[in-house]
């Protein structure tokens, strides 16, 4: 059956008339029945202990889950974004024991016994991190989708090097793509934040 010609009128009209999806009987004969089991074969699972933003959780994870999947789907920490899910863009950057990593390229089970910091944990006891304040003042986020990753990479940089040069900032954030290409503002914001003090939320 081709829909490249105009002989599709019947089924489309049927649909438009409100019958919902005109299922072609031949292919969909085995109608979808009520299903209980989530999957056919049990998926390997492991219980891990992971500290996320200073709170330790014991949690059973599927071995195939990535760290970002654990954070977003199971802890509801959706501030960490998935831009590519394959280690290219840096939108999912979090700190793992203080080091910036792509959480799309780490399995959740690898976080066992380790500490994860996300964008949600950046403000401490009601105070914005100096980086967050500087990002606001410099209008660093445009669409904002890469911002969490830029912030976490910058956090890792300032932890290791509190007074970086502009080139050191560019090098540290090289793995964080901003398609709005607001790179100038991100670098200016990180430089401004280095050595600055926190501010109330």
């Amino acid at each position, binding site marked *: *059956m*081709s*829909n*490249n010609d*105009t002989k*599709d009128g019947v089924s*489309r009209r049927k649909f438009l008339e409100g019958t919902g*999806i*005109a299922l*072609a009987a*031949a*292919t*969909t*004969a*085995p109608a*979808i029945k009520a*299903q*209980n*089991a*989530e*999957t*056919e074969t049990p998926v390997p699972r492991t219980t891990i202990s992971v500290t996320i933003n200073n709170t330790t959780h014991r949690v059973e994870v*599927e071995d195939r889950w990535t760290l970002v999947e654990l954070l977003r789907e199971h802890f509801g920490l*959706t*501030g*960490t*974004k*998935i*831009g*590519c899910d*394959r280690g*290219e*863009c840096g939108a999912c950057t979090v700190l793992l024991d203080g080091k910036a990593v792509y959480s799309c390229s780490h399995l959740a089970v690898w976080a066992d016994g380790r500490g994860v910091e*996300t964008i*949600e944990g950046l403000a401490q006891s009601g105070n*914005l991190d100096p980086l*967050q304040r500087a990002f*606001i*003042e410099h*209008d660093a*986020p*445009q*669409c*904002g*989708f*890469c911002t*969490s990753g830029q912030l976490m990479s910058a956090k890792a940089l300032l932890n290791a090097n509190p007074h970086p040069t502009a080139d050191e*900032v*560019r*090098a540290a954030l090289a*793995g*964080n*793509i*901003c*398609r*709005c*290409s*607001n*790179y*100038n503002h991100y670098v200016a914001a990180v430089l401004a934040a280095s050595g600055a003090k926190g501010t109330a939320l």
Partner: protein
Amino acid sequence: MSIDPLKTVGHATPRIDALERVTGKATYTGDVKLPGMLYGRVLRSPHAHARIRSIDVSAALVMPGVKAILTHQNCQVVWGSGSIAGGVQYNDAIKKTTKQRRYAFNNPVRFMGEPVAAVAAVNRHVAEQALLRITVDYETLPFVLEPEDALKPEAPQIWPEGNLALNVRNEAQPIGVRRGDVDQGFRTADHVFEDRYTTAFVHNAQMEPRACVASWEGDELTVYTPTGGVANCRTDIARDLGLAPDKVRVICQYMGGNFGNKNQNQDADLIASMLARQAGAPVKLELSRKEDFIGMHGRWPTVQYYKVGVNNDGSLQAIQLRGYSGMGPYRKNSGAIGGIEVYHCPNIETIIHPVYTNKTVSGNFRGPEFPQGYYGIQSMMDDVAYKLKMDPVDFVLKNMVRRPSDQAEFTNYTLEECLRRGAESFEWKKRWKTQAGSDAGPIKRGAGMAFMAFRSGIGQSSAIIRVDANGKYTVYVGVTDVGAGAKTTMAVIAAEALETPLSNIDLVWGDTGRCPYSVGESGSRTTIMTGYAVVEAAHDLKRQIAQKGLPKGKDFHTASAAPNPRLPEGKVRNAFGAHFVEVEVDTELGHVRVTKYLAVHDCGRIMNRLSADGQIKGGAIMGIGMALHENLLYDRRSGLPLTAGYYGARVATHRDAPNVEVLFIESDDGYGPYGAKSMGEASKVPAVAAVANAVFNAIGRRMKDLPITRDKILGALA
């Protein structure tokens, strides 16, 4: 021209939603989670061109956790805006007449990555497993990748009507303009130059891949989706699904970039909606990065043949362009090649062929037909100036457009000021080399420039503002912030017009259930059109307050405006600009580094200096990426894309981004809100040409094929 400063408009204002953006609290479509929500995944064609003999979904259907499956056999939904017929906005009339319909699922499939089936399941892993159990029997068909090849008689025919794309009247015709007599111009010109330039397919590559959450309640559909225009998206979804528009609600609170990739509705919205309908549960469909690269659209690649007649004094006599634009197998936009209109020339002829190919689809991308067209024509003209031993700035000053036509004039004109002030600030005379490639040693420096004019038309949009007893204002506007700051801009304009502090304004946005029509975040129009509606509504509300005083108790005063302003006959409104670039080329490695970049723009009055800077810098850096790196490469033997991702397509990173200096020449021509003109697309338009011209000035070789990668530079110098 100097303008009087205003109280709130025109200052450096941090965004009203900045806190949400830096704390991870901003809710993007992928962050939406509804009770009982299923997860969708799409099976895509592994072939460039194939007929589907059969699809067997039975093994997938019986999998526990699989709730719905769509293929072309049970889903005949037409995706109207997926092939908008000649670059014209898809509408009810076109829906009736267009011959070449694009469905959500097509057979035959015409490019690698075209949707073949979609599954909704209890989680993404089950959905992905189910895709693996769908068996598709393909009969592969011959394919064609390059637009010039596609017009040869022996080329595989992608549509029965042939490979030259049909226009809105179902005619296979090239597009173009004709003025004067080019043949006569070439005969009388002192010199005639000819050359060929090509540009690559580059993807919008906005950070947030396409996503959609669709949910039905009875016959009412709610769609959460990233869209540059909730109102247009709703109209399109309703038309495609045969629903009344008031049965569809589109919500977009935050979105991760657009650049033209999220205008109108997308097939993902239709697929998620149909899956949700079949499954009887909400469905979230998120595209992977690779799917987004090949399943959405990017900038159309072009081949441009120029012929230019010029006299000894540098005055242009005739310009001819024969162009070919690769549209993919569906015409999602016009395929035009822009740029000649910014030159004043008595004889002009353009003949541009929008051509079907079996590559991924081309469509809107930040200044749809301009960055690639400007690269071609302004490289060509830079070359002509060089051959005439003229400074390119002098050549432009001699030949640039000064009136849109003999019968019309611009509302204001600052192009000359952009060029002169830019050249002075950039120290053009010092940096541009009269002898291209003359630096001694392996590291060579050079400078290039390009200029632009971009439409800034006024038009219809709407806004509602209400005030409560405490004098607190709520502004209802159907905008979404694609990244350019529309929400903050609307609040700033409202605060100015209402003469109240910005903190006194609340904004309701991005929801067709709560907001009036807005024109949509495409064509750099939101500030001009919706911003003007905000001003009109504010003036009405101020009149009401003056007459009646503030409301009492729980009452509100409400004002709405839906202005549809028109320019007077004979007036054309443009933004203007000029970019100046210095590069350093390592002639041993072929590496290009941008060492200085100045962007001069007249975008009318600046609404927010902070986000305006970001718009100009971002467009310029995106242009650097397009000039030097970006390309979606295809394997000629298989017809499959090879670089569908950030690494492969090589968008600009922190390390590619120079510090971009921005110089605004502000103006107020009396139109738009306080004189605001277009901005977001303008900044990218001349950038590619300026970088390419700088590379020529550095190495003395004209780079005629984008992107200007290391191998091409080394090849040109060999």
